[in-house]
């Protein structure tokens, strides 16, 4: 049984915010191309409807790189059809979007290995090597 139209949840409409964000991205990409200055735009703190975000996603498109990150839930990261413009979508354990950003950079920060993690990994790897030598 379907609900009467008056009782169905509202579908947030297009408000025109995607145009404004697109202009900002274009301007910040110019800056990045000329000076290397990086920018992060937080899409969830802007008064955008879901339709606005979908519109922006379609207009930026998907480029050559797509990455999946499995940390505290999944994250989907892709470079848009505009080099240097990355879409970063963090998804939580329930499959809901927890955060969504546009990163204007060569590589989004979250993809780089942190020195502390690298140090811990080096210690762990050295431990494995020592154990294997002892076993031999």
């Amino acid at each position: 049984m379907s609900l009467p139209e008056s009782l169905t949840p509202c579908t947030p409409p297009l408000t025109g915010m995607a145009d404004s964000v697109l202009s900002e991205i274009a301007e910040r990409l110019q800056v990045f191309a000329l000076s290397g200055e990086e920018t992060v735009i937080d899409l969830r703190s802007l008064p955008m409807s879901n339709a606005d975000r979908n519109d922006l996603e379609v207009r930026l498109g998907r480029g050559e790189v797509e990455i999946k990150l499995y940390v505290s839930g999944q994250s989907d990261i892709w470079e848009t059809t505009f080099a240097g413009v990355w879409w970063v979508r963090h998804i939580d354990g329930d499959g809901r979007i927890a955060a969504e950003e546009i990163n204007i950079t060569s590589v989004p920060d979250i993809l780089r290995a942190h020195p502390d993690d690298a140090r811990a990994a080096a210690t762990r790897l050295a431990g494995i090597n020592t154990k294997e030598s002892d076993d031999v």
Partner: protein
Amino acid sequence: MSKPQTIGEMLQEQGVSRRAFLKFTAYLASSMALTPQMAKAMADNLATARRQSVIWLSFQECSGCTESFTRSFSPTLEDLIFNFISLDYNETLMNVSGVAAIEARRKAVEENKGKYILVAEGAIPLDDDGVFSTSAGNTSLAELKELAKDAMAIIAVGSCATFGGIPAALPNPTGAVGIDQIITDKPIINIPGCPPIPEAMTGTIAYILSFGKLPELDHLKRPLIYFGNSIHDRCYRRPFYERGLFAKSFDDEGARKGWCLYEVGCKGPVTYNACATVKWNGGITFPIQSGHGCLGCSEPNFWDKGGFYKPIPAPINTVGKVVAGAAAAGVVAGAVSATIARARKKNAAKNKVKEENQ
């Protein structure tokens, strides 16, 4: 191997990488409307911080705030916040009870004297020496005074603890008041809402841990990171308000098209909170997105303001109470709420610069 000293060391031992920190702080920074660039600094600072002792007291309330708090993040991110804090006492959540619970609280106070955060949920009744709310033979009033003494700061969560809330609604039969009407010699942060946005509670604690200081507050002691903008300011329906497109009833064409709910009583223009951006139930929606106007539950005396479905400019029965500061300006002209909000942020920034120069 030595015992981990910092949150970073502790989580590294559990195999949690810095990428998880970054993901968590990206979410937090977004919920706080901080610049996304702050997420990296927060991740670094959280990694070197120590776990924060938290003692949570429940007074005259419905436990809705605790319920909200435990749903603050998705399952995986939630694990992280519970690693950042040591929830040493919470009557609703802790396993032990009776004498063992009181002993655990005494121990936590002793070990963290002057360092713990006291979270207070619920109003305090003052009539008849506070006899209307007691626990283990002590009145809420006595308990609050005793535990506030050695706290670093107090976070009052929910409309009851901040402004008296429902217990203080007319005729206020128990003489209920908010925490800051009783404790005046400790830093107090008010996080109102019925219930408050869960991320505003956990995020405020994470902010204190990340930056080693309390966040900037507004005139009602609410953190500007969550209460710096009105709901209206960040509402996705705002463009319809600007164009004069309003729903006139809950089932007319305007309502179906998702137009502004101002004329059916939405209190968004005079309500400061982060519902429009952080949203509820894992960021799915918030009342306005679900087709209902904002009730204004994070403002003082929201229950006694004369009707949830009356447009703001209509005469409202504030029963002698005065709508304070920026909110009063918003009543006069909802359209200028954005300007007011920007001014609030600007003033807060100015005050901060002044403080730093002093």
